[in-house]
């Protein structure tokens, strides 16, 4: 049974009964989630879970601590309050700690779909059966997941702040494998009816079939067309640097670069939880309403996000992007919306003399934190383009590429779409055509 607002408020009333702190906050949540997983054209894992969480933060004489439990009974609530109080008493005071925020007003977002919350294991299995049939039609092997679930979260504090959000999630991803090649496609949405699993299966199958018998190219700098999932997974390693505390502590690649022309003039990015293709709650980890923040405007680093504590420290205004306290990170943008262009991927291919089309990237890691050099591999559908046409599949390549340089070399963009990968959170991003993307080596498949 998913948590209602009324139930969450009742739990918080009990928290206040047991907390003797100067200030008390509780984050109360519950989740019901199920995932059907298939591989080798069969369902091999099929799981469901239900659970809740109560996380109590107390402040006592400017000493702060948090204690959590996954039980809502009276004894567990009391124990969490006492544990948080005991932890708080044992530490030195923080003279910079702000009082908790008072009551806030939130703009509503509607991200709960009953049809997603009610999706059954039988319905997921029937969909998977059709996807497997598509694989078998061409002698392919399918692997993937179909998941659905819902969660609810309330955030309350003793100064009268009261916030509540509920949302459904669904995801379908599929990898189609041939003997020498593979293809992949994925989609997520609060509404399971938007996933279109069979269309995704068709797309993954076509990629696997069209990249059969992949050839090798020499590593080097090439024009690449990055599909939205590839763009997303790269950008995920950049936008955590758009955080006020990261800059204040000089661990961000934007240290000394805010207000400067860092990227190409065609790059425009904002953080916008209210975008219709975005997901998540309209408040942050302290219950502060999320604001739209322009991060990059015509290539200039225009803004960064701030938690209340960071904003106070740096003389800025909070933007509603703080993480639950206490934490080391401060804040982070999580609803990235990148403006795109009007060029389709097909048009990008037609405009390319020699280059690569990349479906997705894999195992991306930061090599250099200030130059923002990332390394990683292509995966599940990498193609050679010549004279405006996709010619054949390629063996996968390793890249080493600075994100700062890459976002100065974007030649074309598609309209943005909600994209999902495996390395970061979902974003609204376009496909991109990028010149001089740097590949350093090949692998054996």
């Amino acid at each position: 049974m998913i948590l209602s607002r009324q139930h969450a408020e009742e739990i918080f009333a009990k928290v206040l009964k047991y907390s003797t702190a100067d200030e008390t906050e509780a984050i109360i949540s519950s989740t019901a989630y199920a995932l059907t997983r298939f591989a080798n054209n069969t369902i091999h894992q099929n799981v469901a879970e239900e659970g809740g969480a109560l996380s109590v933060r107390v402040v006592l004489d400017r000493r702060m601590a948090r204690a959590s439990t996954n039980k809502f009974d009276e004894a567990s609530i009391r124990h969490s309050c006492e544990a948080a109080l005991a932890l708080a008493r044992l530490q030195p005071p923080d003279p910079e700690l702000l009082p908790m925020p008072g009551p806030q007003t939130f703009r509503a977002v509607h991200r709960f779909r009953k049809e997603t919350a009610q999706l059954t294991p039988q319905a997921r299995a029937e969909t998977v059966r059709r996807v497997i049939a598509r694989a078998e039609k061409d002698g392919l092997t399918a692997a993937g997941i179909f998941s659905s679930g819902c969660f609810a979260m309330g955030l309350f504090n003793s100064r009268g702040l009261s916030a509540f959000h509920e949302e459904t999630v669904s995801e379908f991803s599929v990898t189609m494998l041939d003997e020498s090649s593979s293809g992949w496609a994925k989609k997520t949405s609060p509404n399971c009816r938007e996933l279109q699993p069979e269309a995704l299966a068709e797309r993954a199958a076509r990629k696997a079939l069209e990249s059969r018998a992949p050839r090798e190219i020499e590593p080097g700098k090439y024009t690449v067309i990055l599909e939205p999932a590839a763009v997303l997974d790269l950008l995920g390693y950049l936008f955590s640097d758009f955080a006020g505390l990261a800059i204040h502590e000089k661990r961000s690649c934007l240290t000394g670069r805010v207000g400067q022309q860092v990227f190409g003039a065609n790059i425009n990015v904002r953080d916008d939880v209210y975008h219709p293709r975005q997901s998540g709650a309209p408040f942050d980890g302290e219950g502060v309403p999320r604001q739209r923040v322009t991060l990059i405007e015509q290539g200039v680093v225009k803004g960064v996000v701030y938690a209340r504590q960071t904003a106070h420290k740096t003389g800025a205004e909070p933007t509603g992007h703080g993480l639950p306290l206490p934490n080391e990170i401060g804040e982070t943008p999580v609803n990235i919306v990148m403006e795109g262009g009007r060029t389709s991927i097909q048009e990008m291919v037609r405009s390319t003399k020699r280059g690569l089309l990349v479906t997705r990237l894999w195992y991306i890691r930061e090599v250099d934190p200030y130059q923002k050099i990332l390394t990683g591999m292509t995966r599940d559908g990498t193609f050679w383009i010549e004279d405006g046409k996709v010619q054949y599949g390629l063996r996968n390549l390793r890249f080493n590429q600075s994100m700062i340089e890459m976002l100065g070399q974007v030649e074309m963009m598609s309209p943005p779409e909600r994209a999902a990968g495996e390395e970061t959170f979902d974003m609204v991003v376009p496909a991109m055509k990028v010149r001089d993307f740097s590949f350093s080596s090949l692998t054996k498949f």
Partner: protein
Amino acid sequence: MKDFAQQALETARARGASYADVRVMDIRQRYLSTKNGQPAQVRESESSGLGVRVVAEGAWGFAATDDLSRASVDRTAAQAVTIARASALCQKHAVSLAPETKVVDRWLAPCRLDPFTVPVSTCLDLLLKVDAELRRVEGVTLAEAVLDFRRIEQLFVSSQGSEIYQVKTQTGAGFVATSFLGNEIQRRSYPNSFGGQYQTKGYELVEELDLVGQAPRIAEEAVALHRAAQCPSGVKDIILGSGQLGLQIHESIGHPIELDRVLGSEANYAGMSFLTLEKLGQLQYASPIVNVVADATPAHGPGLGTFAYDDEGVPAQCTPIIEDGLFVGYLTSRETAAAIGQPRSSGAMRAEAWNRIPLIRMTNVSLLPGQGTLEELIASTDDGIHMETNRSWSIDDRRYNFQFGTEIGWEIKNGKVTRMLKNPTYAGITTEFWNACDAICGPEAWTLWGTPNCGKGQPPQTMGTGHGASPARFRKVQVGVAYKD
């Protein structure tokens, strides 16, 4: 715990499960950290619940709940059977498990000093002392230190009559000094990156690490890296410190030997493996001096992959993986062992928590020691680079092509360390790299490292794994490739 577990088993049986196992878990964590002179995170959490895994109509189902009431346990067990019947709609072959005998046992991992009894104020005092030592060095712009304690109490019961109670206490500790200067961020970590050292031990691990004593050296290295020469690009002999080598083992041996990857179970997410079945007993994985085991037994040491029984009730084992360079073994489960005709699981099924199914995970995948000291190894190297402490890591989805970066390097010329190098990276192909290993230091330089953050599975699971290693040398390796223009 036992009542809930038995009740779930009975319900699963009554609903038609041909096999069922139940794990009831209680997990407690305390996480304490400091940053630039102040406590950063001071928090505790507790999570308990029950997971029911069943086979019905020849297919798998799993359901989990944190509501340990009689009604909820019944509902969860019934749900697992319903899910298994849905799986059967898309089933090619009925699930078959390698045989395993019934076990009734209990095991408590050795823990000399319970970390949950150490006053929080004592822990924070220690972290703040480390913090002060780090920030005493001019040029350190960020000082971070952490202590992380976890207790995992678990009861496993199965429809075959097994009943296994285990308790593990795990401790992690470490710190990081970061220095920003000009257009460069440099970082040094101790005793390892990404949280430090983790073992299945009590607070005694913290006492062994001498965190305060090591802080000045680490802080000075972080600042000195700004003045160091850039790691050159080219082909060099490299010596990997044991911490970095632990991660090299993890990525390029530990993951490829997981038989579920080999058989395609992870094709959509974590990936597959180049170690296809015909390579078992045939592939010269490494040079003849290389011997690797996957050893979960307490005799191997207090690794994060140490236990008495895995999460299918299979006893911990020491499985030879590479013998004299030859590939000889996989990490297996009861299902995958049966699939390739092996008589028994190697005991490598592990679940992150009560709400996750067990998957094949690394236990302690360790490189057995050779001989000699690090100093002797450096003295016998003409033109090389000694690299220590991981900074970045990446490998393809079949585990061939890898690239690693480390926090620090030292140039070696004619058997002597000549200067510090910054931004070291190296890259290669797994089997070529391991066949280029020509020296492994001895047992006195061997450390059983903990990797607390290994991700796998959908929904994702994070697992701690162990990796024993002593410093080793690899000939003619591509270095500096990440920064090559």
